[in-house]
């Protein structure tokens, strides 16, 4: 049985749906991510889990109990807010001790637990500092220490790293992951940054317009997106509109691209059959497109193309290609002796091409 489960919850603000009929299951000791563009309802979902909002319909169950109507202070969940929400009038110690004092713990216990929590987030000895004099990264750590000091049954993160600069964000990300698994906590993590979600989470739910589009492990989501919107959101992808040519019971499908009129061969799973002569969308990652300088004998899934632009981006280089009207983007590690206007051969790895479903 799942640890936390959202059952058909929805929430409307001023008539428009923020969350619509969402169902999710989070397992014990899992680091679960809610990923989506801003305004997709992920923060609203998190706030409903925290008890800061009440769903209009649906139920939230935690550890077998219905907590839909339970007030936040009675849930015992720790939450790390996007802006940290540190109490500006209290010092570091009092901030971390806040939840313990609410639980009327013994003085000595409060002191020990605060010290331990601060040690865990690597801020030992910061007890007497005013929180307003800390750097962004330090405030962030205090917010995490405050949330874990109460030994939360569930830890909730609302884009906790979005206010940090890039290097600090990546550093804190690693520590956070280590901390949560060390303490054996279950966490729900909201973010709009797919890289962050991939690095942190055991499972991710990709959200859009208040719904969960696809839920799964990061690798599975990246390699096998089920929907065009998921494929578009998770990293760069070439989306190719195509028409299916072969009948549906063969193991290999043939598709004709709408732009350029190329024929592509894609291995087809029996379960993922599509109707003949209907438009569908194929997806291939830029890193799975291989460019060779001279076009040799015409081979399967190889198109001739012209280089339109070369975008240097450090470790990799993006190459924009035009294959008789079909625009493609390829990602190269070494774009040596390739120039704008060159013609070249482009090979699309057949087993890396995905047939996407269209949302009804």
């Amino acid at each position, binding site marked *: 049985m799942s640890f936390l489960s959202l059952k058909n919850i929805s929430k409307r603000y001023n008539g428009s749906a923020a969350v619509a009929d969402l169902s999710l299951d989070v397992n014990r000791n899992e680091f679960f991510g809610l990923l989506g563009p801003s305004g997709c309802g992920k923060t609203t979902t998190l706030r409903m889990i925290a008890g800061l909002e009440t769903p209009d319909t649906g139920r939230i169950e935690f550890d077998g109990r219905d907590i839909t109507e339970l007030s*936040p202070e009675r849930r015992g969940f720790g939450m790390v807010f996007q802006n940290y*929400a540190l*109490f500006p009038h209290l010092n570091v110690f009092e901030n971390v001790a806040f939840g313990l004092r609410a639980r009327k713990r013994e003085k000595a216990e409060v002191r020990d637990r605060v010290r331990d929590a601060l040690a865990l987030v690597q801020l030992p000895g910061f007890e007497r500092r005013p929180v307003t*004099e800390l750097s962004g990264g330090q405030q962030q750590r205090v917010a995490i220490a405050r949330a874990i000091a109460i030994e939360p049954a569930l830890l909730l993160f609302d884009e906790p790293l979005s206010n940090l600069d890039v290097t600090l964000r990546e550093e804190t990300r690693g520590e956070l992951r280590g901390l949560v698994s060390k303490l054996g906590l279950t966490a729900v993590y909201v973010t709009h940054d797919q890289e962050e979600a991939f690095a942190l989470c055991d499972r991710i739910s990709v959200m859009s317009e208040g719904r969960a589009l696809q839920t799964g492990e990061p690798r599975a989501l990246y390699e096998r997106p089920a929907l065009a919107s998921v494929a578009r959101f998770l990293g760069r992808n070439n989306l190719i509109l195509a028409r299916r040519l072969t009948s549906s019971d063969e193991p290999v499908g043939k598709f004709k691209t709408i732009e350029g009129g190329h024929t592509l061969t894609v291995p087809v799973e029996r379960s993922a059959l599509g109707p003949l002569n209907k438009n569908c969308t194929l997806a291939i990652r830029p890193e799975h497109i291989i460019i060779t300088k001279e076009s040799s004998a015409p081979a399967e899934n190889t198109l001739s193309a012209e280089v339109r632009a070369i975008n240097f981006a450090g470790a990799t280089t993006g190459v924009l290609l035009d294959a008789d009207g079909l625009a493609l983007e390829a990602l190269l590690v070494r774009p040596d002796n390739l120039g704008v206007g060159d013609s070249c051969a482009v090979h699309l790895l057949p087993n890396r091409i995905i047939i996407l479903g269209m949302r009804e």
Partner: protein
Amino acid sequence: MNDERKALPPLLIHRSSFRVHRSSFLLALIVFVVLLYGVIYPNLHVLTASLQTNGEWSLDNYRQILSQRSTFEAALSSVWLSLLTVLFCALIGVSLAFLFERYTFPGRGLFGTLAALPLVLPPLVGTIAFIFLCGESGILARFVQWLFGLKSAPWTLKGWTALLIFHTYTMYPFFYVLTGAGLRRIDAGLAEAARSLGAKPFRVLYRVVLPQLTPSLIAAALLTFMTSMASFSAPLLFGGDVRVLTLEIYNARQGGDPTAALTLTVILAIISLAALIFFQRYEGTRRFAAAAMKGATRSRRPVSSGRARLLATLCAVVFTVLLALPVATLVLVSFARDGAWTTQTLPPAYTLENYARILTQPEAGSVFVNSLLMSGVAALFAFVWSFCVAAVARGRRTFSRRLISLLVLLPWALPGTVVAVTIAESYGEANPLTGSFILVGTFWILPVIYFLRFMPIVVRAVQASIEQMDASLEEAAGSLGAGGWMRFWRVRLPLVWPGAVAGTLLAFVIALGEYVASVIVFVPSNQPVSIKIASEMRYFNLGTAAAYGVVLILLIAAAMLAAGRLERRRGWDSGTGG
């Protein structure tokens, strides 16, 4: 509780939600009862009483009042006086705001602060200071008379001119302060963008700066208009034959015609509310969404050329001297021996006796104790009350929330005379049928009126502070397990404290010098300072009256300094969420 819920496992959920319910119900009940007895009942009582003659419903009272020319005259002069006051205050206040906000010159900070000073001068004290300075037997008039060897005083401080000068002097700070704040908010980049698009300075002012200032200007005009409509001390002391509604109400009550007073009260209330609605409607159509302020440029330009610099400084100095003169006069007169100052330009004999009397004689000093006590009680209740209102009126903008805001604001929108008359009429005798009780003649009448009149200031301050507070702080406290009380004591109160206390101190200060309502219902055994000042003036004990005024100003200054310190202490507001 229905059966389905009972079947659930015994969680704490039911008891907790019940408890939250009960305390918020209690708060709502308190707010409802106070508004019912403080605002709804008195106003309805006066309205119905004005519509009855000998126990029968009729419009006779209005027919009678409106058939008198004097009523029309009074209503018309009240409105005209207020409109002209708005005009003159706008001219002076807006120019000063531009001078102090847009240019820097030596002494800008000091003069800028001083310019807002008349705001905290109690109207009655301002009035008598004005009489000492500009009245026909005042220092200026005597000086001019002596200079030119005239036989009689060169002018009489009476009527329209006197009222307008005094109103402008005391009310221009509304325009000065609000326009200044508005100018500070305007993104100077917008003016620069307009300049770069080829607009000349005048066009920039007219098309870019002024439209953005409109909300500030309307707010200032509203405040000025309402204050002028409610003005009482000045028309009483040097209005001459100018009839205004506040004075007519007072005279009708003093002359033993309570029905006429009631009816006039309703008329004044209706005009004030109509003005309020008119201004707010207009304000609603002219709101601008706050544009992004990122990278806003400096808007203050130093006056660079030597001559302009000198001129600006000179203007500021002259202006400040003009501003300080009435107060300086008051201080001077407060040292004058009572009865010694007759026809001389300056008081001939000086003494410390006036102050010594206040400090040593119990009955002389007792008025301060009375005022401090009554204002203190009112301010304290207003403080607690504001948190009750904030708790009840939070959340979605429902009908009930809007109604509460309206009722809370009502006593502020009504002139003090109206509030005093409605309370006095409603709580003159106990009436078991309506649940009314006796306040008139007791200690509580003035604290209650002070509370009603000035609690809107505190409610506004508390609500503004709560809105500025990061809402996620209370949510964080909740998620950490803090219940309602702990959230209030450990998070909301400490964070809202400076703003709330500053607002409370402001209400306290204004109540301290209150005269308009006090003069209608005060209890002789429990006189506030303002009543004492007025009665000393009536006996021509000018020195004593001035000394009372000076002590009152000192008390107010002390409270304002404390409030200013609190404002500055809010350093943490900007420090979080980096």
